[in-house]
C-alpha cells in the first residue's frame, strides 16, 4: 500500500544525507512513527527492505520507535494516553483536547559509514 511511498521518501532523504556527509551507506535509521498515523510499522519494514535495494540504504537497519497517542485536556489540564481514539476527557468530559503526540512520521537520526 502506501508504506512503499513512505519507504521511498525515507530512502531518498537518508541517501541524500549520507552522501552530503561524505559517507557511502547508512547502517542504521532511527524513525519515530506515531500510533495515530496511517503507517503500520511492520508493513513499513517490509516495504523498506524492497525499496532500499540498490541504494545507500540497502543494508540499513530500520529502528522504529512507536509514539503513543497522547492528548491534553484544555479544560482541566489532565493528560490522556489513548489506545482507541475517543476525544472526550475521561476526567471532566470536555471535548477540548489538544494532541500532544501520536502523529509523528519522523527520521530522527542516521548512522552511516
Amino acid at each position, binding site marked *: 500500500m502506501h508504506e512503499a511511498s*513512505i519507504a521511498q*521518501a525515507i530512502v531518498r*532523504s537518508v541517501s541524500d544525507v549520507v552522501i552530503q556527509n561524505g*559517507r557511502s551507506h547508512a547502517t542504521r535509521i532511527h524513525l519515530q512513527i506515531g500510533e495515530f498515523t*496511517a503507517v503500520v510499522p511492520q508493513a513499513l519494514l517490509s516495504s523498506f527492505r524492497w525499496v532500499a535495494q540498490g541504494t545507500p540504504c540497502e543494508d540499513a537497519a530500520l529502528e522504529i520507535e512507536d509514539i503513543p497517542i497522547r492528548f491534553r485536556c484544555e479544560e482541566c489540564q489532565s493528560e490522556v494516553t489513548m489506545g482507541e481514539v475517543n*476525544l472526550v476527557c475521561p476526567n471532566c468530559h470536555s471535548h477540548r483536547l489538544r494532541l500532544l503526540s501520536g502523529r509523528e512520521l519522523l*527520521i530522527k537520526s*542516521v548512522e552511516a559509514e
Partner: protein
Amino acid sequence: MEIRIVEKILAANEALAQENRGLLSADGVYAVNLMGPPGAGKTALLEATLQALGDRARAAVIEGDIATTADAERLSRFGIPIVQINTDRFGGECHLEAQMIKSALAQIPLSDIDLLLIENIGNLICPAEFDLGQHCNVVLLDILGGADKPLKYPLMFHISQALLINKIDLLEDASTEVALLTENALRANPAIACFPTSAKTGAGVEEWVKWLLHSAKDTLGQD
C-alpha cells in the same frame, strides 16, 4: 558516524502541498479533498454538488483513480475543467500526493474558478496522511457501509472537517443510522460537521453546498 536529522518523512510532500495551497489561495480558489471508501458515492455526490451549485461558484474537478477515465467522463457534462489523474502511471498509488496535484493545477485556469473539488482514490486509510494543498478535507461514507467505520479508521475522521453520510435514500428512516454514525465520528473529531445526503435524490445536498460555500468564504475571506 551518527547524523541527527529530525526531519519529517513526508517533508517533500508537505513542501509541495504548501506550494499548491499558496497557488490556490492566491487565485481565490477553495480546494476540497473528498475522500471515502470505494463505492460510497463520491463521484455521484460530486455530480449532485455541481448540479446544486449552479452559478454560485465556478468549479473545477481533479479526479483521482488508479485506472480508467470513467469518473472524469461522468462529470464532463458540466462543461467545467476536469483533470483525471491515474496513479497507475505513478506506480499504482492508492492515494493522491501533492506532486500529482501540482501537475494537475498546471492544466486548470485557476483565475477562472472559485472552487476546486478533488476526488481522492477510494480508500479510508492512506489519503489521510498525504496533504495535497487543499483547504478542507471531507470524508464520505455510505449509510449502509457500517456505522463503526469512524471507530476503525479514526485518523480519516480526525483530519476531516465534514462527513457526508450518503445513500440515505436506501433507508425509509435513516435517522438511527445517521445518529450512530455521527456519534462515532464525533469520537474521532468533536468538531466534524455531519451531512446526511442522497446523491441520487438530491436530499441534503443543499445543506452541504451551503456549508461548503460558507467555509470557502471563511477561509479565503471573500465571496
